[in-house]
């Protein structure tokens, strides 16, 4: 299969990264979101990412802003993605929203098309059940910033076929990404573990053991992590982290995933992390 055009559903943080990566590797994107304003913001962010990409990777091409803009179609109509070779879905981490999106995708896309479900924690088998093609649904967990991360977690749902996995691996090969394939359980490997770190770091802050800066410094300077758990939560978005913890709690029925009240309080206060300018840290306006 050739990858000429990919449907990208959901134009948030990860959606922007996916579109950036596709365009940098010569693949066009049809970007679908329910919000026209979000699509405009996403286009501006993609163009900014592409503009600065050569600074961080000598292998990424220099693409003019006009050329980049010509490789993406922005739309609020899912039917505009019907001619795409593959769909990468990145909508909000909320089962009711995802379920609706997959029911709509099922109607809009030809039966042969495979869906890559980009999710933090929701089971790929559950997502597949919202379609009539669970064999064509495969999980992907991309890391931020997508176009600079060489490795991706790939999740095989209960009904996902080898053929579907192979198609996805060929797409990632085009994007110069290595895939690590795991079986399906909520949160997979990465988020099942990392969200415990982020949640417990919020509890440590809530218990006034120390400051956010010191919590993150211990992870960076003692463990050698590139970012601390609270910085990471701010980058992901505290609302997304909260929703992922709720999914894990619901899925495993295990109290170790109960969301820290401080984290929930920040979300309700509108302090969502980098994207809102405030979270565990305050970010200067740029």
């Amino acid at each position, binding site marked *: 299969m050739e990858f000429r055009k990919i449907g990208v559903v959901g134009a948030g943080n990860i959606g922007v990264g996916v579109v950036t990566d596709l365009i940098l590797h010569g693949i066009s994107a049809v970007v679908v979101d329910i919000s026209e304003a979000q699509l405009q913001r996403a286009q501006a962010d993609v163009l*900014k*990412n592409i503009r*600065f990409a*050569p*600074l*961080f990777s000598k292998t990424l091409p*220099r693409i003019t802003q006009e050329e980049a803009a010509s490789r993406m179609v922005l739309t609020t109509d899912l039917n505009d993605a019907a001619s795409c070779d593959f769909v990468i879905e990145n909508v909000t981490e909320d089962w009711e929203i995802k379920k609706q999106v997959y029911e709509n995708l099922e109607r809009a896309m030809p039966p042969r098309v495979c869906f890559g479900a980009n999710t933090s924690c929701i089971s790929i088998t559950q997502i597949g059940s919202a379609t009539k093609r669970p064999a064509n649904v495969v999980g992907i967990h991309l890391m*931020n*910033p997508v176009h*600079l991360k060489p490795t991706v977690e790939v999740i095989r749902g209960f009904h996902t076929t080898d053929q579907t996995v192979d198609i996805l691996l060929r797409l990632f090969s085009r994007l110069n990404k290595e895939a690590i394939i795991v079986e399906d359980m909520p949160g997979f490997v990465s988020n099942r573990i990392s969200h415990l770190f982020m949640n417990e770091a919020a509890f440590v802050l809530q218990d006034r053991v120390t400051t956010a*800066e010191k919590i*993150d*410094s211990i992870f*960076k300077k003692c463990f050698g992590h*590139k*970012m601390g758990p609270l*910085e990471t939560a701010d*980058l992901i978005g505290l609302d997304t982290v909260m929703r992922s913890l709720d999914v894990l709690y619901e899925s495993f029925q295990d109290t170790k995933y109960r969301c820290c009240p401080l984290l929930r309080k920040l979300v309700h206060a509108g302090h969502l992390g980098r994207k809102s300018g405030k979270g565990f*840290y305050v*970010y*200067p306006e*740029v």
Partner: protein
Amino acid sequence: MTSVNAVTQDGIRKTVREFILSSINITQLDDDDNLFESGIVNSLFAVQLMTFIEKTFAIEVEMDDLDIENFKSLSATTAFVVRKNGRRSG
């Protein structure tokens, strides 16, 4: 006596230093600290830094400027802004 250029350079350095310190979890930043090798900043912040200097100093980071050497430290970033300002006024 301090030259006009030196005053400008000091002003740019001060503005950039304040931006970095207000954005990153550090309390001290030496002029020649390598921002990237030391792990002080990541790629996400580098884009913010370039957007900040473009807006603040009304310059444009062009394709040929996209070299990490131009932004690797406070000194390098200051010199870059001074150079771009000079080119514009010259």
